[in-house]
Structures are given as structure tokens and as C-alpha cells.
């Protein structure tokens, strides 16, 4: 056998797979279903004393087919898997629109305090006064930083918050007998915007974009009318730009009897500097898992509280907190207008675990820190933009907000695509930027560093991207097409996966 097995693992006698070059610490790892533990368990539980005769034939008779592992095996399995991931804790993670910032471990610790983690959502209210106070305090912070008078905490993520906001808008219109059927949103909008509008029962119409990446006011004005329920605009928008005409957008929207829904996913860029209320916003969700740093966890959970204007506040979903005589109270059933209107977004009261983390994050930053967050996030993005603009083509002129957007025109003639650049960046040790979003920019590369990156790390990232860009222009095409070479897996065949979906493990035939 070949001891220096660059590339593909070799298969020596008895089937042992040697790790590939550079991967002495990267252990290969099978699926739990292949590890053979059909009768094992890693949990010691006492022998039950009673039988289940009382349940008769409600009892399962067949095997479920769930493998078990002893604790050492299970721990090793998931530790090995973990090492096949990139993470913020490993390096800059410049996914535009995702705000991959540092996740303070203090917040993890606090979210596990027994009095916050080990409480039931339906315990008597007298036994959860601290929890309600925390939610009330978080609501206060969110209202003050946005300038808005009300907030619904229960939505479970950004998209869920969007839905909450649009349903409140629908309820408000319905309450005055003014049923409307359309939502306007720019083409650059995040996919959740049109998807949410549809889920809320609206037709979606696109708003055109100007050459400088903003909402085309004339087009907006033209499309506004008595059937338009809401205008959904992301601000700063998904091109990483502040909507210069935001006040005019609000004015036109309101003049047409519609509401202004702002997608607040990019709030990180302006927190402490601009209050959405001052922009005329009626509803805006806040991704606590972006701006307020609750961890992304490989896909979730997040939390998407929605701040609401006076006009929409009466239509907030249950539950909400009121200050009563004997302490804080939880209103769990809608009364008045909202009762007929919105209802509830989900069981219980929202993502408490995220509230704790976000509140700790806010207290840690304070008014001064939050403003500095915006400043540094914006500065970092502009610095990256400035340092790359000679090699790559910025999609728009002028300063950006918290993310720098490039198109792929600089790749013309290289035969390479945005995807190739992304995969080559993996070989340099970085997670790629967001690619092909927003849709309005060809071959978009959206780079969001966030404020928690040091200049040194940003410089390292710039150097890596410059190296990749230089190589691309030098025509080293083959190397891009094969990338990544250095990751736990080579380029994965996504077409095959979709063509012949294998979503669960099946025993080999």
C-alpha cells in the first residue's frame, strides 16, 4: 500500500481506509445506521416494574429500526462529524445576508440557568415572574432601538416574523373592511418575502430596481393602488445598500392606504444609528439570530420578533405581557380586534432560549456598543470592497452598508463562474460568500464580514480572495473546476441528489 496517499484513500488489507493527506486528524465516519448498534444503548435506565397490558394493541409490535451507540461511540461519532464543518469559531464566515457574527459563550451559559431553561411554558404565572420580566425587558430594548411602540415576540424566525407582520396588516385592513390582495416587493427581495406574501394570501408584484440598486420610486408609485396591502422593502437592502428614498417609499405607501413592511434582516448595519420608526416603517421583523447574535446552529433555531407601529399594534398575535397588580401577566388569548384577526403564530410564547441570549447580548453592548456594531460592520464591509475593487467588479458605486456586493463581470473570458470562485475559496480555508443572491445582480457575490472580525482576519480573507481572483484571471481554469481539493469532500453532485432523491438511509440491497 501507499503510505502517502495523496487524494483518494487506499484500501489496504482488511479494508482499512487511510485518511487522505493532511487529514491525520480528520477521521472518516460512517452513518449511525452502519455502525451496527441495533441493540445497544448509551443511556442507563432502570428496569420497568409494570407491563403494558393496559394498552392492549395500541402497543407497537414491530421494530422501529433505530440504532443505538454506547456513550463513548456516540460522542466520538458526533465529534468526528463536527470536524467536517466550517464555523465562525474557525474563520471569517462571510455569508452575505446571514450576519455570521461571534456567538458569545456567556449567552450560552445564561440560557442554561435552571430558572430560565428548566421552566415550563404553562407553569402558574406566579412561578415565572423572572421569565416574563426578561421578555418584557427584551421587548423594551427592541422597541427603543427601533423606535417602534409595540413588538410581537413569538415569531420563531425571520420568515415567521414576516408572516406575522403581513397577517397583522391583513387584519388591520380587514378590520376597516378594506380587503386588499397585493403585496409589492423588489426583485432583489429575499425569497422569504414573496413566499410569505403568498402564504399570507397575497399576490406578489415585483417593484423595479434602479441602476444604483435601489427601489425604483416611479415604478413603485405606478404600482401602488387600492389593491396593494403592503410594500415589503429590505433596508439596508439585499444589495447591501441603504434605500436613500426610504422616506418617500413610506410616504407613497401610506398615501395609498398600504403598510410599509420592512425586512429587518440587515438591521445590523444601522442598529443604534437609524430607528426604523423614523423611516415610517409599520412592521419589521428582527432576526435575533443575526443582529443579536444568537447562534445559527447549522440552520437554526432563530427568533423573529416583529416590531409594529401604532396602527398595527392592536393586531398583534397572542401572547403578550401586561403589567398587572400582582406582577406581570401573560395574555394568552386574543381579545378585541386581534381575536378575530391574527390568532397565534405558534404554541406557547416564542423562542425563550433566544430571548435570553439576545437580551444578554444587548446588555453587554449597551447603547454605545450597539452603535459601534453598526459602525464596525459597515466599515469592515467597505474596507473589503475597497481592497477588492481593482480585481473584482463591485455591483454598485458608492459606499455600501454591512455587505459588499460584486457581480461576475470580472470573470468574463475566464470561463469561470461565481460557483468556481466560491469553491476555490474553500481550498484557501474560508467559507465562501453568499453567491447568486440577490438575483438582480449577475453571478452575485455578497460578502458580509460583520463587526466581530479583526482587521488581521479580514486582511487574511482579502489576501485569499485576491489570490483566487488573480489565479482566475491568469487562466488557471482546471484548478477551479476541480475545486475544492482540500475540503472533507470534493465538489458534490447536487444534480444527482435532486434527480434521484435519497433522503433516508436504506439498508444496502
Amino acid at each position, binding site marked *: 500500500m501507499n503510505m502517502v496517499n495523496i487524494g483518494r484513500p487506499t484500501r489496504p488489507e482488511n479494508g482499512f481506509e487511510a485518511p487522505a493527506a493532511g487529514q491525520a486528524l480528520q477521521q472518516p465516519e460512517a452513518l449511525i445506521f452502519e455502525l451496527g448498534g441495533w441493540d445497544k444503548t448509551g443511556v442507563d435506565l432502570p428496569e420497568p416494574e409494570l407491563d403494558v397490558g393496559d394498552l392492549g394493541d395500541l402497543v407497537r409490535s414491530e421494530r422501529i429500526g433505530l440504532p443505538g451507540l454506547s456513550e463513548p461511540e456516540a460522542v466520538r461519532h458526533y465529534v468526528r462529524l463536527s470536524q467536517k464543518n466550517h464555523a465562525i469559531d474557525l474563520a471569517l464566515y462571510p455569508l452575505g445576508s446571514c450576519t455570521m457574527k461571534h456567538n458569545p459563550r456567556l449567552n450560552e451559559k445564561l440560557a442554561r440557568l435552571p430558572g430560565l431553561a428548566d421552566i415550563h411554558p404553562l407553569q402558574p404565572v406566579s412561578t415565572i415572574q423572572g421569565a416574563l420580566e426578561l421578555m418584557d425587558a427584551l421587548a423594551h430594548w427592541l422597541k427603543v432601538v427601533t423606535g417602534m411602540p409595540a413588538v410581537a415576540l413569538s415569531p420563531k424566525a425571520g420568515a415567521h416574523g414576516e408572516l406575522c407582520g403581513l397577517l397583522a396588516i391583513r387584519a388591520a385592513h380587514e378590520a376597516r373592511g378594506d380587503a386588499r390582495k397585493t403585496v409589492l416587493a423588489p426583485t432583489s427581495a429575499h425569497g422569504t418575502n414573496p413566499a410569505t406574501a403568498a402564504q399570507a394570501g397575497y399576490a406578489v408584484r415585483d417593484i423595479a430596481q434602479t441602476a444604483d440598486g435601489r427601489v425604483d420610486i416611479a415604478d413603485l408609485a405606478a404600482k401602488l393602488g387600492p389593491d396593494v396591502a403592503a410594500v415589503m422593502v429590505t433596508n439596508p437592502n439585499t444589495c447591501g445598500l441603504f434605500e436613500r428614498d426610504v422616506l418617500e417609499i413610506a410616504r407613497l405607501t401610506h398615501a395609498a392606504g398600504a403598510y410599509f413592511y420592512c425586512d429587518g434582516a440587515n438591521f445590523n448595519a444601522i442598529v443604534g444609528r437609524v*430607528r426604523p420608526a423614523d423611516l415610517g416603517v409599520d412592521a419589521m421583523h428582527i432576526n435575533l439570530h443575526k443582529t443579536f447574535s444568537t447562534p445559527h446552529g447549522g*440552520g437554526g433555531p432563530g427568533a423573529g420578533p416583529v416590531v409594529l407601529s401604532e396602527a398595527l399594534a392592536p393586531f398583534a398575535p397572542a401572547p403578550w405581557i401586561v403589567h398587572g397588580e400582582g406582577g406581570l401577566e401573560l395574555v394568552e388569548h386574543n381579545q378585541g380586534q386581534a381575536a378575530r384577526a391574527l*390568532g397565534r403564530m405558534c404554541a406557547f410564547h416564542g423562542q425563550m432560549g433566544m430571548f435570553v441570549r439576545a437580551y444578554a447580548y444587548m446588555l453587554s453592548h449597551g447603547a454605545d456598543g450597539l452603535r459601534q456594531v453598526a459602525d464596525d460592520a459597515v466599515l469592515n464591509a467597505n474596507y473589503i470592497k475597497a481592497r477588492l475593487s481593482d480585481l473584482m467588479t463591485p455591483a454598485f458605486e458608492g*459606499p455600501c452598508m454591512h455587505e459588499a456586493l460584486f457581480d461576475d463581470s470580472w470573470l468574463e473570458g475566464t470561463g469561470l463562474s461565481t460557483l468556481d470562485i466560491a469553491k476555490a475559496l474553500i481550498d484557501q480555508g474560508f467559507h465562501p460568500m453568499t453567491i447568486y443572491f440577490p438575483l438582480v445582480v449577475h453571478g452575485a457575490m455578497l460578502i458580509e464580514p460583520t463587526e466581530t472580525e479583526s482587521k488581521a482576519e479580514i486582511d487574511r480573507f482579502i489576501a485569499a480572495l485576491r489570490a483566487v481572483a488573480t489565479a482566475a484571471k491568469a487562466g488557471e481554469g482546471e484548478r477551479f473546476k476541480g475545486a475544492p481539493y482540500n475540503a472533507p469532500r470534493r465538489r458534490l453532485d447536487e444534480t444527482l441528489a435532486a434527480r434521484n432523491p435519497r433522503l433516508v438511509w436504506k439498508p444496502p440491497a
Partner: protein
Amino acid sequence: MRYLPLTPSDREAMLAAVGVAAVDDLFVDVPEAVRRKGLVDLPLHQGEIEVERRLGQLSARNLAAGSAPFFCGAGAYRHHVPASVDHLIQRSEFLTSYTPYQPEIAQGTLQAVFEFQTQVARLTGMEAANASMYDGSTATAEAVLMAMRITRRSKAVLSPGLHPHYAETIWTLAHAAGGKIERLPLAVDAEAKALDAIDGDTACVVVQTPNLFGTASDLTALAEAVHAAGALLVVVVTEAVSLGLLKSPGEMGADIVAAEGQSIGNGLNFGGPYVGLFATRDKYLRQMPGRLCGETVDADGERGFVLTLSTREQHIRREKATSNICTNSGLCALAFTIHMTLLGEAGLRRLALLNHQAARKLKAGLEDVAGVEVLTPRFFNELAVRLPRSAGAVTEALAARGVLAGVPVSRLAPGAGLDDVLLMAATETTTDDDISRLCGALAEALA
């Protein structure tokens, strides 16, 4: 400010590279009128010591479930989660990674999701499962929307044992899009009533087992009748541990299963974050909401995993997407998967047996308390009991004695005329001593 790495001199050098004099110059696109000069009206930054003190005080003002005899359930259950689960989900590589958009450097997350999907499919007796929903209630609402898409019908019948929060969530999500929701009055053991409400426009019947009152039912006959009417059966499970003991929804004929996965791997957390399980038959795959992880190969032919069938999803299909969901419950799903891997079939089965046993002991204890009537005929780990007076008042009285006795139905459905009914759950964490303290306190309170 400990989370901000830039130093004043870094900022200066960077501003120079950008070619502006001050950060303010980067905000020129913000209309002058709305640029705030000063700070917002909130306290200044604080150190860990102060933040920890504040949160510690808030925590101390709640009565933790673990420090009292505890019998609350109704959709959120207190189980023991092995210490290694929480350790593993806190690994940087899991905790601080994003949705696996670049699969080559996200195989850890993706393989775990693939394991999760397989576990969920097997547990529910279905063919396919997605990568998670927000929680059981939103998963159920999405199941209803999916049934409406599949059948092109617009009505959902909610059976009498469905958790009121779930019913309200379904209504909220479905009515705006034109769905009609028929909600049957709450009843302890009347799932079959749903049949009476089925009509030609019925997309689905939504039925929960064990239901709100703890009643476990065989739904096979119901499923057949629902199918005969051209509708789908959506089975809801709020206590995932029950699946270790009871017949699976798939075996009973479910078309879609929506479940709350919190019981496995996840703590109470005052109601969230939890993890919605969503499973269905292969033929409905392309109508599923949410992320799906699929197996594929890399350029070297090695097995690997990717997010797939994304043409269903909002980022590709936009207003035509099957759902607007983007962020899901990834880390809670990971906790579920790790805990389930530790349990294995043998452990899960035993865990379920211990839960059932605890509830039987609870029932035996309660039957000795004068004035208490157990209503639930067949149960897994939860019971409904009728008290001689308001369940809400009794619960508060017991809380004052340091006992968390359960969830009054009036808390969930104030107008349902069930003010004297209390829902009580027991799990593997319930001790005999807990039960006797409960019963003692209850006897006192009712005396």
C-alpha cells in the same frame, strides 16, 4: 467592548483605505433627518459580571421544574437529557455554523441531518422526513397547507383532542390563504367525531395521539374513512417519546405526521426553541415544506450529503414555494438526533415504558385523593383529571406549596367549559416521592 476586535488605529487605517474621513461618511445614503447623532436611550455596555448578575436575578425569580414535584405537560415535557447531548451541540463547529449552503465544508451538519431524517421517518413509520420545522404547532399548520395543496381542497377538520394552541396556529396560517378550518369542541376521547365533519371539500383531518387529554387511540379505522373521503390524515404527536411504545402513525395510515420533537434531546426552555418533526410518504415529497438533505457523491465518487429538492423552497421558487420557512430548528434537531442515537431502539423503548409506568403510578396516587376523578381512558404519560373546583385555582394553590401540579385546560381554552379539568404528565424523572408530595398537597388543597 469585548466583542469588537477593531482598535482605534485599525479603524483609522481602514477608513484611509476606503478613502473617507469618518464612519459617518459611509452613512451618507441615510437621509439627514433620520440619522441619529446621539445614543439611543438605553444603558451603556456592561461586563460579564454585571450581565450575569442581572440574568441570575431573573432566573432566581422563577421556580425551576427540577426543584419541585413537577407534572406539567400539554405539549412540553420534562425529560432527562444526557449530559453529552448538550456538550456536543455546543461544539463550535455545530453551534456556530450556518445552514449548510456549501456542502463540502458542512458534511458534519449534513450527515447529522440525514441521520435525523432517517430517525424521524422510522419513528413515525413514514417514508421521508424533512430537516425540521420550528416546532410541532407550525409543523402541523404546514401539514394542513400541504394537504390542501395535494388535494386541492380547502377545508381542514380538527379533531376534538387537538391541542388548542395547535388549532389556533393552524387557523392563523391557513385562513389568510383561504383555508377553512372546522374545529370540533374539545373532548377527551372522541376522535371519531371528526368523520362527521368531513365533506367533499375536506383536504384533511388533523388528529392528535396521545391527544390533549392524554388519550391514546388507534387511528386505523379513522384513516380508512378519511381516505375513503378523498382526504388525507394528518397525525399530530406532541410527546415524541410515546412513539417508542405506541403504534406508529404510519402503521395506522397517516399521510403526514407533524410532531413536536422537544421531548428528545431538548429542555423545556419556557416553550422554545423546540423542534418540529415533519414526515410523509415519498409520493408527497415535492409538496413538503422545509429543507431536505439528500445523499449524493463527490467528484471522487465518495458519498456525501447536500441540501436537495430546493426547487420547492422560497429561495428558488419564491411566491410559488411550498413554504416560506428558511431558518429552521437545526441545533434542536441535532440534539434530538444525538439523544436518539444514545437511546437507540432499546433505550427509547425502555424510556417509553418508564414514562407509562410513571403515569400509572400517578393515576394510582390520584385515585386515592378524594374528589379527584381521572378522565383519560387509555394514556401514555399524561392524564386529564376532573377536580371538585377550578383547576386554575388549585394549580396556583399547589404552586404556593412548591408543587407544579399540571396545566389547567382553562389556560389553553378558557371558554370550553372545562375549568375543572387539569392535565397532568409524568415522565422518567418523576419519583414516587414526587407523586406522594403532589397527592398530599392536592388532598390538603381540596380539603
